[in-house]
């Protein structure tokens, strides 16, 4: 017994010593380039396994052409991504090439963390890109991020359920919000509890932005202030509540429960609802989960308001760290991602319908059916759209949570729609003022 304990002790102290040595060895930094002149870049993105796999292939394609460049990938899921990126940036160790999201751009720009891409325009060609791809990144005269591609916030419909309920598919070029609500109520009645007209709307700020734009207002102004009145928001929520109260959607409890899940657990995906509001890039997941074909429609009210409200939203965007040691090489890689048709063949629509029309055309016949539909829908939609919205203000990332919280309070009758609208404006102003 005693000898065994002694050996354990010796083993433990040996381990501690080894560790101390390793610590000392690890102390030498290894940042920058390796001795042989290879340029090392880090590249970070969020996504799931399929995106990780093809993005690695993109890196391999690029480094095969540029053997002097090495790209170290980093990836995680969306929620963890922003924590990790913020920490790394605060620690002065931001990745060179960053997958951005419009709601976070201003924050990073305000802290001087993103490179003005105009400074590398000799290797990063933006001339072929759709102008909307640059709109989201133009802040104070600089260009800080370029859209990877576009999505639009649309209605997804299940024609099978509409038909089962005994109705015709609506004409989405003329329908009003009232038409939409009436139709969903009728479908719910026909469904008798087996299926509903729609999954409730009202928690998504993108949809409210569309509604506000239809009324000639906007969620945010170009100077980063709020661009809508409390009356407009109250009207929007009145419509949302009307749909729930009249039975066009499941009741409040179930609405909150379903709202908390992703598209693959939504009413459309489980064959229990005729309509829902989703981003166009989610169509593939929705119809895959539903096991049948779903179709994209325009939002209601596009032709009945002051102006059309739908817009092309950058799905995500590419940025380069202001602290990168190799802005030119990083820009070359971003150029490859945006403008190379070979890269487009890997990307397809996964990061939005490509911003470069040449790439868009090159991949058109390689898309799976659902993505084909998205591409067609977007190109049909594009000419009818209003101006692209300006980049959202700093702190816009919090608006999702604020909207969700106030919506639920209102749903369960603790706030009237007018009170809720005022509360929302107050809280959002606090959030974006910081």
């Amino acid at each position, binding site marked *: 017994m005693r000898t065994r304990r002694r050996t354990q002790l010796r083993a433990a102290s040996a*381990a501690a010593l080894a560790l101390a040595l390793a610590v000392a060895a*690890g102390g030498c930094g290894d940042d920058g380039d390796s001795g042989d002149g290879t340029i090392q870049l880090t590249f970070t993105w969020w996504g*799931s*396994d399929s995106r*990780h796999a093809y993005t*690695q292939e993109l890196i391999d394609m690029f480094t095969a052409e540029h053997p002097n460049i090495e790209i170290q990938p980093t990836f995680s899921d969306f929620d963890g991504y922003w924590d990790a990126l913020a920490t*790394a940036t605060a*620690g002065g*160790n931001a990745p060179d090439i960053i997958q951005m999201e419009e709601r976070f751009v201003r924050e990073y720009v305000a802290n001087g963390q993103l490179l003005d891409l105009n400074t590398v325009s000799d290797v990063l060609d933006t001339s072929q890109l759709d102008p909307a791809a640059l709109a989201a990144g133009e802040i104070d005269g600089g260009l800080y991020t370029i859209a990877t591609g576009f999505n639009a916030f649309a209605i997804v419909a299940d024609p099978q359920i509409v038909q089962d309920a005994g109705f015709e598919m609506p004409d989405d070029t003329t329908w009003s919000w009232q038409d939409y609500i009436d139709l969903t109520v009728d479908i719910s009645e026909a469904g008798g509890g087996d299926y509903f007209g729609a999954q409730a709307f009202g928690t998504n700020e993108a949809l409210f932005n569309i509604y506000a734009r239809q009324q000639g207002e906007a969620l945010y102004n170009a100077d980063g202030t709020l661009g809508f009145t409390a009356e407009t928001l109250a009207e929007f929520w009145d419509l949302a509540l009307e749909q729930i109260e009249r039975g066009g959607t499941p009741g409040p409890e179930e609405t909150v429960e379903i709202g908390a899940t992703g598209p693959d657990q939504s009413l459309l995906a489980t064959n229990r609802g005729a309509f829902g509001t989703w981003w166009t890039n989610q169509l593939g997941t*929705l119809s895959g989960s539903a096991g049948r074909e779903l179709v994209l429609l325009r939002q209601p009210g596009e032709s009945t308001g002051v102006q059309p409200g739908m817009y092309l939203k950058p799905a995500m965007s590419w940025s380069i760290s202001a602290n990168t040691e190799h802005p030119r090489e990083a820009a070359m890689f971003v150029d490859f991602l945006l403008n190379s048709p070979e890269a487009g063949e890997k990307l397809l629509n996964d990061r939005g319908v490509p911003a470069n029309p040449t790439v868009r055309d090159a991949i058109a016949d390689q898309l799976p059916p659902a993505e084909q539909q998205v591409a067609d829908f977007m190109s049909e939609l594009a000419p009818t759209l209003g101006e692209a919205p300006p980049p959202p203000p700093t702190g816009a990332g919090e608006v999702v949570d604020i909207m969700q919280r106030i919506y639920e309070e209102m749903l369960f009758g603790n706030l009237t729609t007018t009170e809720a609208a005022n509360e929302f404006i107050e809280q959002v102003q606090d959030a974006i003022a910081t």
Partner: protein
Amino acid sequence: MATNELLRTTDTADSYRGPRRRPWWQSLLIHGGLVGFGLVMLYPLLWMLSSSFKPTDIIFREPGLIPTELEPGNYVQGWTALLHPFHRYIFNSLVIVACSIVGNLLACSMTAYAFARLNFRGRKLFFAVMLATIMLPIHVVIVPQYILFNELGWINTFYPLIVPKFLAQDAFFIFLMVQFIRVLPRELDEAARIDGCNHWGIFWRVIMPLSMPALATTAIFTFIWTWNDFYSQLIFLTDPDLATVPLALRFFVDSQGDTSWGPLFSMSIVALVPIFGFFLAGQRYLVRGIATTGIK
């Protein structure tokens, strides 16, 4: 202490007759109720197990417990779909977990011994400071930590996850062991001192063997917490080659809805196996009383 324990032992011997006198239908009812309650508690786990065998697209369309279609391919796909086969991530996690356990056992027990048995200036203050660190949320300390480890060149190594454990950073376990060591009779220390032990001897030959239950608790919880720790691993390990199990599981998740649920659930089941096994193996140490260990 020891006498108390003995008394309790005789108590249990007496009370053994209790259940035997209970009519059969009553124990049937009680056990039936307990089994039923256990099943309700287990349901989410069973659901995950059953869903791990369903094709991804029917998981939420047919949420019942019995799969209508069997898809064992989820396991193959989950194991191979990521950049590395899944055992690479398990190995990474195991390395971190093993080092963390060794570190916590050594460092926390020594620190606890100092707090419980030594008199030094500022002991109460340091103890209070140590307790205060438990209350700091990780989000507060993560950025300073990141800057520190970045300066040391430790980002993308296991050091930020392991070295602090060797420096008794897990205040919870120190607290646990301080409480445990405080109730050990000081007479044992004094006896050891008379026999010629210094502090190291008392710590190693008297306190440590008597602290087996506390050490086991520390080891088990260190295992579970480190194995499940997502946040600090996310921050410090950005190289996919070094990814651990919690990070790898998140690789399957996509907030925009393209989550590979089947492979995710199947690998979650795989990820549960080591914890489950470790807990089963360690559980009896958790319940073993101090007196029995002391007498042996």
